[in-house]
């Protein structure tokens, strides 16, 4: 078969294959941040700190570690996403310039974006699935329906990833990436109802939590794990997260084209 043009989906899959080829050689470097760090969080906060917390109304009647685990699944997805959506994408534009090599083939800038997002989604799925397994082994997750929290966590992660990838495509310098971690990811981790209920925060802070993908993700993950999820709120959370993904893709298409077809 001769060289030919691929459709968007095949093109994205081939791009994922390229990332996978890299990952097969370099996965060891990602183990600590992707798999070990969330487990340390679960041990320190859930098992360690959690032993001092009384199960009660605030924890939905669950032991603290059980209350925390589904939320950590979502937090893990977002924390794993942030590096991939900033430094890794920036490098592909600027340092390794691998995107530039790819767009001189029949692959278009939009295909490059799809491939990158699909690859990150797979990484998030793997990271959260491994975390789920460890949480089950530690007894922090006992409900079988928690399996459904994985896709919700990936969706929340991608609702964060897609707009950030689009933002990264506009950057000439990597200066702002640490700020994203400090001023977006850290507060989203700590103040969106994961470690303690949102009701502990002053009312005026609640809307700030509601715009974050993490809060929606935690509501979904906890709801599905504890069987408290109602259809209408669930549809609202999913719609909001999906809208962020779509927004990120629309902007990303524009910025990738602007950056790669000059």
């Amino acid at each position, binding site marked *: 078969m001769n060289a030919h043009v691929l459709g968007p989906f095949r093109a994205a899959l081939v791009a994922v294959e390229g990332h996978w*080829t890299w990952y097969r050689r370099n996965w060891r470097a990602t183990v600590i941040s992707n798999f070990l760090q969330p487990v340390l969080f679960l041990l320190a906060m859930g098992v360690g700190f959690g032993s001092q917390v009384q199960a009660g109304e605030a924890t939905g009647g669950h032991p603290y570690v059980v209350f925390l685990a589904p939320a950590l699944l979502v937090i893990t997805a977002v924390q794993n996403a942030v590096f991939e959506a900033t430094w890794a994408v920036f490098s592909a534009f600027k340092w390794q310039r691998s995107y530039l090599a790819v767009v001189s083939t029949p692959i278009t800038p939009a295909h490059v974006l799809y491939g990158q997002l699909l690859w990150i989604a797979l990484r998030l799925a793997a990271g959260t699935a491994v975390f789920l397994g460890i949480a089950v082994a530690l007894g922090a997750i006992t409900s079988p329906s928690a399996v459904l929290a994985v896709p919700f966590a990936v969706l929340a992660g991608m609702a964060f990833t897609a707009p950030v990838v689009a933002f990264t495509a506009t950057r000439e310098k990597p200066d702002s990436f640490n700020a994203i971690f400090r001023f977006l990811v850290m507060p989203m981790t700590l103040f969106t109802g994961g470690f303690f209920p949102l009701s502990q925060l002053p009312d005026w802070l609640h809307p700030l939590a509601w715009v974050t993908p993490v809060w929606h993700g935690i509501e979904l993950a906890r709801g599905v794990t504890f069987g408290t999820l109602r259809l209408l709120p669930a549809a609202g959370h999913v719609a909001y997260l999906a809208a962020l993904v779509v927004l990120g893709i629309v902007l990303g298409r524009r910025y990738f084209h602007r950056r790669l077809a000059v």
Partner: protein
Amino acid sequence: MSDAAANVMVVTSTLVHAKGLTKHFGSFEAVRGIDVEVGKGEAFGFLGPNGAGKSSTMRMVACVSPRTGGELRVLGMDPDVDGPSIRARLGVVPQQDNLDTELTVRQNLQVYGRYFGLSRSAVRERAVELMEFAQLTDRADAEVEPLSGGMKRRLTIARSLVNDPELLLLDEPTTGLDPQARHLLWDRLFRLKQSGVTLIITTHYMDEAEQLCDRLVVMDGGRIAAEGSPSELIRRHSTREVLELRFPPGEQSAAEVRDLAERVEVLPDRVLLYTGDGEAALSAVHARGVRPVSTLVRRSTLEDVFLRLTGRTLVD
């Protein structure tokens, strides 16, 4: 064959056709209306100093950079409409290597081949052939990062051939390489040309242009300053020979020899006499009692043409 038939032949085998092609970046005009035709099987060169617009032109032909104005057809198609289909049939060697330095030599070829829709087994076979061609077989499973500049360049060229391109675009293929590496690359490019691949090369090395190009254009300031084969350009824009008279700095006596050549150029340490017969000019110089430190009679080269057309001012 009638003239009309001959013309048709020429038209159907045109791989690149550009007319009044322009490229602007904001208010900067990188390419200011150039006309170029490249035919099948040709080795065509863009020669020019840094900033002449060569790379911008190449990127437009490679269908990665949309043109600002003018006509452009590559393989008979419009890059704005059929970019992906054109790129499927092109090979591109960019000025800066953009290999995946964390992958092996073999993986670079295989991954890249997949972007052209080639099957896994096809890219596996192709990688083996290309590593053979680029003399990289013994490095097949080595990571790219520590390879020498020459090896990386050969790999970039090998990678550009993965889809069996009809047209190969090489942007300064040998810049920064040592002489051995350059000659090895030239040899590979010459073989490609022999096998019928059309080459478009940008370079600021005159020897490279003379070695590889059937026909070339000299670009300067976004425009085409001259066009022709290397020998035509020398004939048209220089003399057959050049007599170089070397003096201690500041002691050149150009005034005494100015009438002995078609054109005389005074440099800080040398006087260049452009003439049809260098030996005769040298005798005349000696007869006038001018005593340079050393003398050299040489053939005119593309470098003389180039410097004549684009000036000796340094371009950064």
